[in-house]
């Protein structure tokens, strides 16, 4: 273990884990899982594979980068991101579409990556928490989560943040929610606390940091208005 990692400012837990024994050994024995884009684009009209479950070539566009992967059709977008591309910011919570920890943006819309097949998202623009900002240039939603303590353990946070980025954009586009008093009325959405809570209801937080999350989004909504 390299002691530098323990003293480095802002040390990444992921970097620590990836550098520790077990995972390194496992990865070392895995076949190469991806490579940067090559010259043969996959066909958009797929033929039936002859061997059920056999891996097929899948090209994904994630955070502006292209990844050519060999994936079984049953691999979810969530597992493709985490296990095959190595973007572990997107979290696996329930893996059944109930908790929202896996929320990513596909063509600017928030979805649950655990209930999506990677192979079905060829040609789509996928954005994960890693694509929103970094320590030197935070997305305003990330900054607001820090300013308002919008988390405790942090496990649901990437999903909360991706969800919130889309939520603010949806509100700007005058979309309705179950908290909208009159769906027939046109005009800008007023992001009351009730609206924020309803529009973020697809993201659960077991620590119960909801008060901080609502405060962060009230703040972020005001700044973006």
């Amino acid at each position: 273990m390299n002691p530098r990692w323990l003293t480095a400012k802002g040390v990444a837990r992921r970097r620590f884990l990836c550098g520790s024994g077990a995972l390194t050994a496992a990865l070392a024995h895995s076949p190469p899982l991806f490579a940067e884009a090559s010259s043969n684009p996959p066909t958009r009209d797929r033929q039936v594979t002859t061997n059920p479950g056999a891996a097929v070539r899948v090209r994904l566009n994630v955070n502006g980068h292209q990844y050519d992967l060999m994936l079984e059709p049953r691999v979810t977008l969530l597992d493709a991101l985490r296990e095959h591309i190595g973007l572990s910011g997107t979290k696996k919570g329930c893996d059944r579409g109930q908790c929202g920890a896996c929320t990513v943006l596909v063509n600017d819309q928030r979805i649950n990556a655990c209930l999506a097949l990677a192979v079905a998202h060829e040609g789509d623009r996928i954005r994960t928490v890693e694509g929103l900002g970094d320590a030197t240039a935070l997305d305003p939603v990330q900054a607001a989560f820090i300013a308002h303590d919008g988390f405790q353990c942090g496990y649901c946070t990437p999903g909360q943040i991706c969800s919130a980025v889309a939520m603010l954009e949806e509100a700007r586009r005058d979309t309705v929610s179950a908290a909208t008093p009159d769906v027939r009325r046109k005009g800008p959405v007023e992001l009351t606390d009730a609206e924020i809570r309803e529009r973020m209801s697809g993201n659960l937080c077991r620590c119960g940091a909801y008060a901080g999350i609502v405060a962060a989004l009230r703040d972020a909504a005001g700044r973006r208005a």
Partner: protein
Amino acid sequence: MRAFDYVRVKRVDDAIAALADPDTRCLAGGTNLLDLMKGYVVQPTRLVDITRLPLAGIRVLPDGGVRIGALVSNTDLANDRTIRERYPLLSQALVAGASPQLRNMATVGGNLLQRTRCHYFTDVAFAACNKRTPGAGCAAREGANRIHAILGASEQCIAVHPSDMCVALAALDAVVEAQSRSGTRRIPMSEFHRLPGTTPERDTELRRDELITAVTLPPSTFADHSHYLKVRDRASYAFALVSVAAALEMAGDRVRDARIVLGGVAHRPWRAVGAEKALVGQVLDEAALAAAGAAATDGARPYRDNAFKVTLAQRAVVRALRDAART
């Protein structure tokens, strides 16, 4: 999840051709299908990805009705300007369901084909489920049946249909369009979902070789007086214990026409025809509302844990009608 073949199609004919294989399922939003596949409840050997089919449009028809493509997402349908103005009941029902993430993925066609969330159906650890395995029995009848049916159930199955959208579509007299090699069929919502009877494995009248291509709505007569009320265990992101789609056409202070459809109480959206008839010509006073509520649960038969749903449904009908009249 078991391994499967994946094929992507761009033409409706190719999707229909693929459905000739009985172990093939269509993949649209995937929010229900992939969940069931992860739980080994459904195990297709091949998925046909239909998300690239040209079925994602909403268009106003010459008669003033609307045609909604089967692949329109729940989000896009709820926010469509025509739907919000002319069919606010449908917008309300859509945003009452699931979460924003799921609504972005889920489609109209998939929502129509949603499977029940009966605990015993969705967990293969329980062997006794006639819907999963015909003839295996029904664990829910003597089990934890708080969320189950109070109307239209059978010895074989007491599951409820989970959709909110379908409850509104039933109230709005929607028609489902289904295409197969033998042509296009138009199935009214009132006939689309089935009661369980002795064949609970069949949720709908859709045949295995048919693809839902669209849903049509007749011109709206209920836009001014409608309300979708959903009662559930949490304030959001939960299935209905009871829901009510109430739609009224008023003539002055009297009811000219009414639709009352309940969700969460039966194997299909439960149209309360008796309650509707009781309201026609009436002024909506307390007596008329209470009579409609009582009529809506006519024939109710609760099980061990869900007797509360009878009273809840009656009160929900009263409140939904009151809110519909006020809008």
